[in-house]
């Protein structure tokens, strides 16, 4: 496809914004997307606390590529490597996480230190004198940078610095990390599942305020019961909260919706479902956050929820729990999703239990809401096979001050996607 054809996959004028469904179904577009989007921008790898100690490692597949994140025993720096032996290709790291002094390939027993240097070759005398260990270290991913503990990689050596790439999203990461006392930990146990749909549908869904009430009616009903809030309806708290939310384009394809939370939040908004036993502690936390950050910032931290998309495939949902969701394309009609629960390392056991309980009600593959999102995305993907209709409509809010139930955030995502696909991005991530 020509760049001009790719640019036309997103069609917009002043009152209309639409996306060609081929963006979700075409194998050719999928292959171009792998190179022009995923191999040119920053992609989230994981949180630094997952490798808290020297020699800690995790393995992770990023856009189909097996990688590993290792904390150096010498420098304490966290680095990312391609998880493949420079000798004949076997994966070096064959478990999800752990700690190692030496990383040894099981096939021919070449071994590497935590900086990737080749430190052992059985029967090295069998190689010609020109053989140099320095040529056969583990290959680092071209770029690996962290922002406040969030570790990203890029396969593009010329990509702009991560802090520039994050643009307006930085402010939201700051807000979240500040609220966690600057020390986040990843709670053990992750959600890891597949969805038979194009990955971009989950990007849209993750901050789609418009779908919340119709798709998740059963969740809001349950919430009304446990928190004694109003049932969804025109005048209910949940309806007005959705309507009153705000939406922001954060630049570089990142965007956020932010709105008052009808539910409790472990940081720090008490609700009846949290039980009286946690009320005093949450009130203390509130007072502490107000003192530290001032009323305006603290109230926003505590009482608002945020659904933040960091382009292209990282979602940080600071809602009834703090969820980090990363999704990778597998095929045009298939993605792989990993989600973690993050929390302040300083959190008390009581609030941690409440946080986890709140997570499970809405989120996760067994929650009261997420399975219906999976169903919606798969249903869209199945609907595309019908043909007959070429465009998806993303026009909501183009003729008014956009709200959280509008589609400005999706337009921000798609414009960036289009510009990368059509080679229109000149600075930084362009290739």
């Amino acid at each position, binding site marked *: 496809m020509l760049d001009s054809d790719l640019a036309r996959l997103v069609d917009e004028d002043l009152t209309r914004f639409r996306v060609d469904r081929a963006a979700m179904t075409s194998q050719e577009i999928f292959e171009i997307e792998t190179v022009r989007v995923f191999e040119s921008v920053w992609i989230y790898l994981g949180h630094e606390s997952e490798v808290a100690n020297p020699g800690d490692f995790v393995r992770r597949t990023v856009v189909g590529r097996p990688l590993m994140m290792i904390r150096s025993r010498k420098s304490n720096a966290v680095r990312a490597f391609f998880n493949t032996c420079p000798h004949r290709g076997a994966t070096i790291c064959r478990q*999800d996480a752990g700690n190692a002094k030496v990383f040894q390939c099981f096939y021919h027993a070449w071994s590497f230190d935590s900086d990737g240097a080749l430190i052992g070759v059985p029967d090295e005398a069998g190689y010609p004198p020109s053989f140099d260990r320095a040529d056969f270290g583990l290959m680092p991913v071209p770029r690996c940078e962290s922002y406040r503990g969030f570790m990203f990689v890029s396969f593009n050596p010329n990509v702009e610095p991560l802090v520039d790439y994050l643009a307006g999203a930085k402010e939201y990461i700051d807000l979240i990390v500040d609220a966690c006392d600057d020390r986040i930990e990843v*709670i*053990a*146990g*992750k*959600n*890891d*599942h*597949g*969805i*038979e749909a194009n990955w971009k549908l989950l990007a849209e869904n993750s901050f789609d305020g418009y779908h919340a009430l119709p*798709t998740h*009616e*059963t969740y809001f009903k*349950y919430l009304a*019961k*446990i928190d004694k809030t109003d049932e969804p309806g025109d005048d209910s708290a949940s309806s007005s909260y959705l309507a009153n939310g705000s939406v922001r384009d954060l630049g570089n394809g990142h965007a956020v919706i932010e709105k008052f939370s009808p539910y409790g939040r472990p940081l720090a908004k008490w609700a009846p479902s949290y039980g009286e036993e946690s009320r005093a502690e949450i009130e203390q936390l509130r007072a502490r956050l107000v003192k530290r950050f001032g009323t305006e910032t603290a109230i926003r931290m505590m009482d608002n929820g945020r659904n933040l998309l960091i382009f292209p495939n990282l979602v940080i949902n600071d809602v009834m729990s703090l969820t980090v969701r990363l999704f990778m394309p597998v095929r045009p009609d298939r993605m*792989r999703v990993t989600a*973690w*629960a993050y929390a302040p390392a300083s959190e008390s*056991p009581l609030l*941690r*239990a409440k946080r*986890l*309980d709140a*997570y*499970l*009600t809405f989120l*996760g*593959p*067994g929650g*009261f809401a*997420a*399975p*219906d999102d*999976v*169903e*919606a995305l*798969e249903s869209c993907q199945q609907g595309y096979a019908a043909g007959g209709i070429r465009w998806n409509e993303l026009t909501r809010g183009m003729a008014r001050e956009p709200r959280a139930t509008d589609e400005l955030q999706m337009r921000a995502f798609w414009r960036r996607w289009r510009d990368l696909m059509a080679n229109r991005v000149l600075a930084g991530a362009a290739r």
Partner: protein
Amino acid sequence: LIAWNVTRGEIEDFLYREAALLDDWKLDEWATLFTDDAHYVVPSNDFPAADPTRHLVMIDDNKQRLLARVERLNSRHAHREFPHSRTRHQVMNVISEGGDEQGLRVSASFIVWRFRNDRADFYVGRYDYVLAAAETGGFRIRYKRATLDMPSLEAAGTVSIIL
């Protein structure tokens, strides 16, 4: 250990009846098998030993949330399960692990098949039960844990049914 004067056959009959209620979507009746202090837990695939108060699991229902789960699945708005999938809960390798003050500990293997919309999904794993003696004779479920053997939900995507 507290001795329970029950045979494996009696335990199996109870578990098979529970499985049949799930497969027949008689979820209200299924919920009556649980004590008021019951818990139903499904750990995350990657962490079978998880403690739901400290670790992220997929399901940790007390009786209130279990009843809400049933109400949700009975409605027309649990979209992943409306129309309902067809399921088959197969229970095998039933072992009585002995009794304590909580009840009788029982483990079993399971395969749960789920068919819907041209998809065939499977869930394979181990059940751990704590069974209480029902006043009317037989058992009630005080604790049910379904630990999955699959390292991820790569294929099934969700746990939208009751395992």
